[in-house]
């Protein structure tokens, strides 16, 4: 065995945010590794869009996402209050929340802030109905997005692969029929 694998260095980790339909918010799908955002978007398509439900993909470097959980906030209830704007220029941040225990991180909205912690503070005040269990904020400008032109090219091919849908196989109904037949035969024998 050669040592080729040890010569690799790990690429950047990108979070993948996936929108199933126009009327649904973007949700976290997972991550991919890639040397740049453009490649990350292509990888994200290969890894997360093998089924026909995608109209938009976003990728953002995982190390640019500021994350916080309810447990972390509860440990220091006054931490969030103590956060101050930093004097940096104001920019737009996306705000994502995990709203249910089982749920996925979901796009809630945008806020304008001077740094990530400040953005979290503003977002929790701006969206008081989102009493979630964990939150993410990250700069809007850090996101690379698929465009409407990409829909047909990137996501279209999955739409015609209907054999990936288990409903297109009739194995269960065949099995049930055979098992019923067997039961009838056994009851005749006894």
């Amino acid at each position, binding site marked *: 065995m050669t040592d080729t694998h040890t010569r690799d260095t790990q690429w950047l980790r990108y979070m993948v945010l996936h929108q199933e339909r126009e009327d649904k918010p973007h949700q976290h799908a997972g991550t991919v590794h890639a040397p740049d955002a453009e490649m990350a978007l292509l990888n994200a398509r290969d890894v997360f869009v*093998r089924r026909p439900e995608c109209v938009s993909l976003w990728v953002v470097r995982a190390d*640019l996402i500021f994350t916080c959980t309810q447990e972390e906030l509860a*440990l220091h209830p006054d931490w969030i209050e103590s956060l101050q704007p930093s004097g940096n220029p104001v920019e737009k941040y996306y705000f994502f929340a995990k709203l249910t225990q*089982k749920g996925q991180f979901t796009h809630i909205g945008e806020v304008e802030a001077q740094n990530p912690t400040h953005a979290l503070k503003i977002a929790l005040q701006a969206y008081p109905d989102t009493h979630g269990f964990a939150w993410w904020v990250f700069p809007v400008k850090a996101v690379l997005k698929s465009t409407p032109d990409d829909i047909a090219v990137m996501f279209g091919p999955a739409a015609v692969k209907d054999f990936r849908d288990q409903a297109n196989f*009739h194995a269960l109904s065949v099995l049930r029929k055979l098992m019923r037949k067997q039961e009838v035969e056994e009851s005749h024998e006894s």
Partner: protein
Amino acid sequence: MYGATVEPIEDIRTDAEKLAGFEARIARGEKIEPGDWMPDEYRRQLIRMISQHAHSEVVGMLPEGAFITRAPNLRRKLILIAKVQDEAGHGQYLYHAAETLGATREEMLDALLSGKAKYSSIFNYPTLSWADMGAIGWLVDGAAILNQTMLARCSYGPYARAMVRICAEENFHRRQGQDIVITLALGTPEQKAMMQDSINRWWWPTLMMFGPHDTDSSNSAVLIRWGIKTKTNDELRQAFVDQTAPELMALGLTIPDPDLHYDAATEHWHFGEINWDEFWNVVKGNGPCNAERMTARRQAHEDGLWVREAMAAYTEKYQS
């Protein structure tokens, strides 16, 4: 808290308080998220399980990949390609879940390629005929779904979410396997014989997939205590036999276990003892295909080196 560089929030609780709080959260059915406090052993067990699971998906592409060029028609070929692609994707979902615990993808791949890491022993058995595509889909993926459905409820959020996604896709895998088995079992005598031979070879290794008996499984107690597993190896194995045995028999196939019978008193199918010597032998690396699988993985990784180098060179060129 991971991600952007900001001051971490200090946790001033004692270890005993942290553990009590953690176990109370699990008892309430809450999901633990990256950033939340967790015992080192919880993190260690999860990294072990999730990375093994990821490796299994990746190595699991090989036995079926061998039959892509030999599929009996175009539709079956498309289905098999789609299924193998799914396994590659599932490996990616799972490596991601392990990364949220602090493991790096590089470490995990190194562990796999150096032979240090384990993966499901089932993939060290050879695929000898097209019927094996049916047996793998129905038996192997069927067994995996039982395990994964349980893990979709596990206490660690990122693992549970990866599992929800995987389970949805695995159902297609099992269904296409059943479709192949039904077609062959109800086909010509030669097709039926080929299917029977395949069931004879895959039945016992599939039962071994659930792992050692509960009494011999060193990790079971702690995994159940912390909500990583909610059912034991033996419970899942029994559920698999109860579900699968009568369906295979309805197709006129036999199961290679003279002790197998329905026990009306327990309302379960009783089955014979597994050959544990065979199981441990394969786990230790002496199965029929262990060496072949590792060689194929290393070869694939080395063959991909120029692609990785080209991608890195492209980035360097256009970002500088």
